[in-house]
């Protein structure tokens, strides 16, 4: 039988899905075991049990000075920045995407400009943002917006351009104005794509968030990781990294569910 025709059965599929996770965990456990056997004081690869204990301590015990559970405060601060940044990006991206995709005049005016803007490495602008917007929340949110917006505009305007010409002509024969075509034909057709693009933008958004937090912040997941790096507290770093991964995965999953729930007609391709 050809390899391309071999499909895993249900139990095998579950095993195959879990296998890479198990292998990575196993590799880490063995590496940790070997290093700890040679030097019980080793901090580079703490034992899985120790990481777990640290995780429990982090999410349940308050800070010794203030009594706040920093883990949750970090999470909340980071998610707030991420949420505000991505929301602004999505909204502005949708607006400009529709303009560029639907109006030839706007396309001439903006398409090349956005294409050039998107080539600027956002992190290179970070010092400017800190100078202009200060070290507070604003500069971090702006970095996320600058980092994700050009991609969203380009992607969404492309999707609007891909709306079949026939549908636009049809809407015109039904008497629709440009505005009605935008809100009743183009907008609903790119909404699933917006969610898709936001899902793709979340990776860069986390990158910019953590970069901004690492440089100037007093709260946040990225800040904490770079803070405890000084003490080589690998158990804390690993806990935070795993937590960020889980958060990113959950957000992605939630967006996919939203897309399925609200845009059932766009089922394929999600």
């Amino acid at each position, binding site marked *: 039988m050809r390899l391309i025709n071999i499909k895993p059965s249900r139990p095998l599929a579950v095993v195959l899905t879990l296998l890479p996770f198990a292998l990575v965990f196993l590799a880490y456990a063995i590496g940790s075991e070997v290093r700890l056997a040679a030097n019980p004081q080793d901090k580079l690869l703490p034992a899985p049990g120790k990481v777990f204990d640290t995780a429990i301590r982090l999410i349940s015990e308050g800070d010794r000075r203030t009594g706040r559970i920093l883990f949750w405060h970090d999470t909340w601060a980071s998610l707030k920045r991420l949420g505000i940044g991505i929301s602004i990006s999505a909204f502005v991206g949708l607006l400009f995407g529709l303009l560029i995709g639907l109006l030839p005049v706007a396309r001439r005016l903006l398409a090349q400009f956005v294409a050039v803007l998107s080539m600027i490495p956002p992190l290179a602008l970070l010092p400017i943002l800190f100078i202009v917007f200060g070290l507070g929340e604003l500069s971090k949110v702006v970095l996320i917006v600058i980092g994700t917006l050009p991609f969203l505009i380009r992607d969404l305007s492309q999707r609007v351009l891909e709306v*079949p010409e*026939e549908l636009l*002509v*049809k809407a015109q*024969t*039904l*008497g629709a104005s440009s505005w009605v075509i935008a809100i009743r034909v183009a907008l609903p057709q790119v909404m699933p794509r917006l969610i898709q693009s936001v899902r793709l933008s979340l990776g860069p958004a986390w990158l910019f968030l953590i970069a901004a937090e690492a440089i100037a912040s007093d709260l946040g997941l990225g800040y904490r990781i770079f803070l405890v790096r000084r003490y080589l507290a690998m158990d804390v770093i690993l806990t935070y990294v795993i937590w960020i991964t889980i958060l990113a995965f959950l957000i992605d999953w939630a967006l996919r569910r939203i897309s399925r729930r609200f*845009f059932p*007609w766009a089922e394929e391709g999600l």
Partner: protein
Amino acid sequence: MSFVTVEDVFQSYGQRPIIERVNLSVDEGEFISIVGASGCGKSTFLRLLLAQERPTRGQVTIADAPPAKEPGLDRGVVFQRYSVFPHLTVRENVVAGESFRRPWGRFFGQERKEAQARADETLVRCGLNHVADNYPATLSGGMQQRLAIGQALAARPRILLLDEPFGALDPGTRLSMHDFLTELRAEIGMTIFMVTHDLEEAFKLGDRVLVFDKTRWDPHDQDRYGATITYDFDARNGGIPFQTLEEETHVLQAH
């Protein structure tokens, strides 16, 4: 009295002429089939009728109105594909035929209920009432085209343009679509233009069959000349003309 008048229309893309010297006069309620080889400009001609493109020379007028600059309410259209809105349910698609002309593209309150009731009547006529709440993607090709026709008619256009509407359907479905269109036409008597590849279909449905072809050929430069209407058949009575007596003959009278 001519309803649709095409006067000396030329259309070229850049240096390349597509159609040339097209003159046509169509009465209200006529069904015009348009046939021709691929690339002979019949779809271009339909786009000119639709006002999706404007001719480089000449003009198209409908009911003596000034030539249109862009597609509008007076022309309805059904394409081979992408004729219905995939993000609207079947019923919403028909309602859209009436509501898209509004400032927000939708009806509210009582008006909305009435429009939905009218849409349901249209759906019954199209045989789609049982799938009113489904999305078009779940419909078969024939059902989607019936919906597209129903939607176009809901907007009450002056003329209906069909661009190879049944080209993607299987032969059985195509036959039932012919019956559907014939019945619909008997009911509403609308002026229809249909582009098709299928000669049999053209003669079966049309009152007149227009053939687009090139009258001049440059053997060194195939694209030198455009196409025009080379035949204008009377297709009533199965394509055999002079079957209906229109004058008093006196020969069959008893005395």
